[in-house]
């Protein structure tokens, strides 16, 4: 008995029973494809939700002047402390390792006027990094430029609430001149609406100006009220906080024994919500994957088991003409491997195809990852091979007489 003959025997057995081979393969194809599709949908939803939470600013950190003291003792309002300066901002921009964007924040309250409409609000002086930090997007017009910041230009970008109140007629606000207190301002862009946040605050009640403009022309001050930044990823928030602390302490020439003369806060509430939501989704996904794999595996197991069992007589015949147990086992193992691997590969194509179809037709978020494809392929193929091998082993150990008389 040689390997070539075994392969020929196995190939012939597959070719002569196309229907049976096809049905067996179908079990594996459906198993692999459904697992890949389920996981792609699950993973896609998970990423979508993660992105939605991230848009709430989960990786945002806020730097304020003044030490973070315990309760008790008189303290000044953070806005009145002058320890946070533009030098701090520039050092953070130049030295940070974990930040995606940094922006100074200075704000002042006042009245906005356009024609016979007015609106009481506050303006915020920022750099263009603020858009990244707060996940804001420009809907029309554009963000003010670096040049505007250098020249303390009298320009602003406004939110939807401002537009609604100043331009009730629906006129295009971009290019219009409004007045803040007595200073005329040109609207260069309008922000995309974000609605209310989880605290009930209107996130569209916002006017952004170059921080230089607010500092020089409105507040006439040289210090910053706070600095906002966003970490590169949500997981790097703690690293970023440590990094900024080091930079600011060096900057402020603090000795090791001194307390910080600033405080840094992150969006702990959002980030802990994110962590718990993600771990729940991961668990859910693991359940979906587990159940799909078990269901797929049982389907494969059944069809392999039945197809080998119904061939008991064939096994008996082969043994009576001189096949050894090992020959029978090898033949069925080769058949099972060929069917399972081919089925697994086709299943992978179908799974990826079905996922893309769901994405195109239903518009669901889809994420196909290498590990899910590999996992479903491996589990289904190994199940297929095992349950092809196991009954064949049983059959190979049968007495040829019993096998050939098997009904």
């Amino acid at each position, binding site marked *: 008995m040689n390997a070539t003959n075994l392969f020929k025997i196995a190939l012939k057995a597959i070719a002569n029973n196309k229907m049976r081979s096809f049905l067996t393969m179908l079990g594996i194809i459906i198993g692999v494809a459904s697992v890949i599709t389920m996981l792609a949908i699950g993973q896609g939803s998970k990423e979508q939700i993660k992105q939605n939470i991230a848009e709430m600013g989960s990786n945002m950190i806020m730097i304020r002047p003044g030490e973070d003291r315990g309760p008790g003792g008189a303290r000044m309002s953070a806005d009145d402390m002058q320890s946070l300066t533009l030098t701090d901002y520039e050092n953070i921009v130049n030295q940070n390792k974990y930040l995606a964007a940094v922006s100074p924040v200075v704000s002042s309250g006042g009245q906005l006027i356009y024609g016979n409409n007015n609106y009481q609000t506050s303006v915020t002086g920022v750099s263009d990094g603020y858009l990244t930090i707060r996940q804001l997007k420009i809907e029309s017009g554009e963000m003010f430029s670096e040049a505007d910041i250098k020249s303390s230009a009298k320009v602003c970008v406004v939110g939807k609430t401002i537009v609604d109140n100043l331009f009730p007629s629906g006129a295009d606000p971009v290019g219009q001149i409004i007045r803040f207190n007595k200073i005329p301002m040109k609207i260069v862009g309008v922000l995309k609406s974000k609605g209310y946040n989880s605290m009930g605050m209107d996130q569209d009640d916002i006017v952004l100006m170059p921080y230089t403009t607010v500092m020089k022309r409105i507040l006439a001050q040289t210090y910053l009220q706070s600095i906002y930044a966003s970490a590169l990823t949500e997981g790097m928030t703690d690293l970023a906080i440590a990094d900024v602390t080091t930079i600011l302490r060096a900057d402020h020439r603090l000795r090791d024994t001194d307390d910080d003369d600033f405080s840094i806060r992150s969006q702990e509430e959002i980030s802990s919500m994110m962590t718990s939501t993600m771990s729940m989704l991961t668990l859910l996904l693991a359940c979906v994957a587990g159940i799909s794999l078990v269901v797929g595996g049982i389907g494969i197991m059944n069809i392999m088991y039945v197809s080998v069992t119904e061939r008991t007589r064939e096994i008996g015949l082969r043994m009576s003409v001189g096949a*050894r147990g090992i020959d029978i086992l090898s033949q069925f193992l080769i058949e099972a491997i060929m069917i399972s691997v081919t089925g697994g590969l086709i299943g992978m194509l179908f799974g990826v195809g079905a996922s893309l179809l769901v994405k195109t037709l239903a518009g669901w978020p889809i994420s196909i990852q290498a590990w899910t494809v590999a996992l479903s392929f491996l589990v289904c193929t190994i199940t297929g091979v095992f349950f092809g091998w196991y009954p064949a082993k049983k059959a190979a150990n049968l007495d040829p007489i019993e096998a050939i008389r098997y009904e």
Partner: protein
Amino acid sequence: MKPIIDLDNIRREFVVGDEVVKALRGVSFTIHEGEFVTIMGTSGSGKSTLLNILGCLDSPTSGEYRLDGTPVRTMSKNQRAILRNRKIGFVFQNYNLLAKTTAVENVELPLMYNGDVSAGERRERAVTALRRVGLGDRLNHKSNQMSGGQMQRVAIARALVNDPAVILADEATGNLDTRTSFEILVLFQELHHEGRTIIFVTHNPEIAQYSSRNIVLRDGKVRDDSLNAHMLDAAKKLAELPVNDDD
């Protein structure tokens, strides 16, 4: 004449539950090359057990069995498989062909398990065997496209293809109508005349008349072992039979 099969006090016991069933209780005989032996017996006489032992599918509990000079009882399963492959040709009552497989491929099967035979030689020997049984024009017919008689011819070709020391037929005509049965019997007689050793297990006493020797089993023992001096010619009988209308 060379002894092909030599049985010496063969016993075979099965344990069924608490009971020991003695299927064979000391069977001894010798079959020489070129004999056409029928083994007869009612059900329960032990003839199936004897056939399994003769075919190296089963081992005796005690006693010695030499097939073509080789002692079989102490052989392992794998050794017996190889012995079956080289020395024995089986013909079963229900043909046992591979489904949806051509005649040639079915006949090639025993040689597939013999690594010494090349693909070309395998095909050649299968075609020769099929021509020998009169199916030279049906080489590539599939097993489900053939009649019972044709299927049994394929099975006989498969038994011949490894040039065995002995052909073991188990009720080989049991599923066939009278005319086809005689056609198969004619084929066996021809093989006998060519010098092949044939053992035909049956419960049909008529067949015994066409063989050269008849062994009758009862209750696990040889009750009668006689040579047949007046062997009938199956071809003559076939000629006397009415021709089937649908043939």
